[in-house]
């Protein structure tokens, strides 16, 4: 198929960017979206132009590196997939495809379609972990009984790959779905209870400092999340945060 691509080009973080139009021809249905981008970049290199920079790593939908806002949706038109798992058979010959970086004040553009998502790392560092002694007599995690329902919900939350599609989809660029998944995956398990209060307080504090917007419960994040993280997690984080705020000892 032959396609017209309208791609955001931006030299670096400081300079102003803009949409540039490209044509790619004879794209196979079986290609992934990123392979199509590779074809474009080969073409650009052959023409002596600067290739389009974009994030990618595992290309099997689990690392959370790829991003791209494709035709108005993070990770493109396919539900429950990342951009690397999006196939060109979702498009038709002659289509025009808009490709933009995820937009948020907290995700500044580094170059072209590459954005700096280290805000998510800093939120993780603020509390997205549990402390375990590794003195040699660490208890086997499987020895602690956990109700199946809780284990399943914790696992569902833990499938978050931190790609930032929730922020990109949200009209407020809010990171609540991401943070709530990280809070929930531990809040539901006994191992996470020890640091539950400070985790909720510190991760929300860091999220606010990064300049994400506020949640207005539109549900766009849940609809666009490649891992189907549920809004239920946001309600759980709100409960965790509020109960911690009202009952935790002052720090």
């Amino acid at each position, binding site marked *: 198929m032959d396609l017209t691509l*309208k791609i955001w080009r931006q030299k670096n973080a400081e300079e102003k960017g803009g949409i540039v139009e490209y044509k790619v021809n004879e794209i196979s249905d079986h290609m992934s979206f990123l392979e199509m981008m590779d074809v474009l970049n080969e073409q650009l290199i052959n023409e002596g132009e600067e290739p389009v920079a974009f994030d990618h790593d595992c290309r099997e939908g689990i690392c959370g590196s790829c991003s791209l806002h494709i035709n*108005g949706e993070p990770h493109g038109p396919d539900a429950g997939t990342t951009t690397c798992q999006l196939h060109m058979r979702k498009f038709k010959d002659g289509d025009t495809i808009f490709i933009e970086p995820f*937009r948020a004040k907290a995700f500044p553009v580094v170059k072209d379609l590459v954005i700096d998502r280290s805000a998510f790392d800093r939120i993780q560092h603020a509390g997205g972990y549990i402390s375990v002694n590794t003195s040699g007599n660490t208890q086997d995690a499987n020895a602690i009984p956990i109700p199946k329902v809780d284990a399943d919900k914790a696992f569902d939350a833990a499938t978050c790959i931190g790609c930032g599609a929730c922020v990109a989809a949200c009209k407020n*660029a809010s990171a609540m779905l991401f943070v709530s998944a990280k809070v929930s995956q531990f809040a539901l398990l006994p191992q996470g209870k020890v640091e539950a209060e400070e985790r909720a307080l510190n991760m929300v504090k860091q999220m606010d400092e990064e300049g994400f*917007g506020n949640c207005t*419960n*539109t549900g766009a994040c849940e609809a666009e999340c490649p891992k189907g993280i549920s809004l*239920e997690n946001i309600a759980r984080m709100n409960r965790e945060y509020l109960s911690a705020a009202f009952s935790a000892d002052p720090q």
Partner: protein
Amino acid sequence: MSWLTKTLSSSIGKKVLMAITGLFLCSFLIIHLVGNLQLFKDDGGYAFNTYTVFMTTNPLIKTVSYVLYFSILFHAFWGIYLEYQNKKARPVGYAVSNNQGSFASKNMAILGTIIFVYIAVHLSDFWYEYKWGHLPYVTYTEELATGEITSIESLPEGYTQEVKMLETFDEAAGTKSTTVKDLYLEAELAFSKPLLVIFYVLSMLVLGFHLVHGFQSGFQTLGLNHPKYNPVIKKIGVWIFAILIPFAFAVIPVYFLIK
């Protein structure tokens, strides 16, 4: 900052304040509607006008009404502030956006602003007129034996707009006379203007859209999300708060226009 101000100024705390004031305003709608249904009573406004006196003199209701005024202003201005903050979180927008949220959820601020303008118009039509305007007085004479009520427009001597209600009993005739400000007549006059009626009806449509998202969103923000109760909260939000209540309110001006 104390822990409380720190909590309430966090992104979650700010939304909690929106949820609490919003849900309080929802509860007010029920009371307001029940009171206003007395406008449909065919008694020349006797029930409605005496109810108005009760609502503006009862100390408990007066106290709650100050909380209500505060909630309206707070919910409106805090909402605009949050919208401003949310816009700032995405300084460069998308060329193409295919946002998945519902129409209502994406337009809460603009819907809320229209409702705020409506409240200002509505208060100046009735609340202001009742408190500071010059309303005519009406005297209802009730035959205590039969319960039959007759009314005459009146302005007895020495009355000023400060007088809200005067009741006298005539034991010999077996009648009770009640003189009150005629807010019912004010409603009749206001809703004889088709343009105002259209504005009221459209405003109620906007209110319905605001509440179809707002009611259930308030519960989600407070962390009240549970598979057992979510369907009930959603149904109440849609059928009662977004459809029934705005519809019943919208019927009132239409009823007066075609009466």
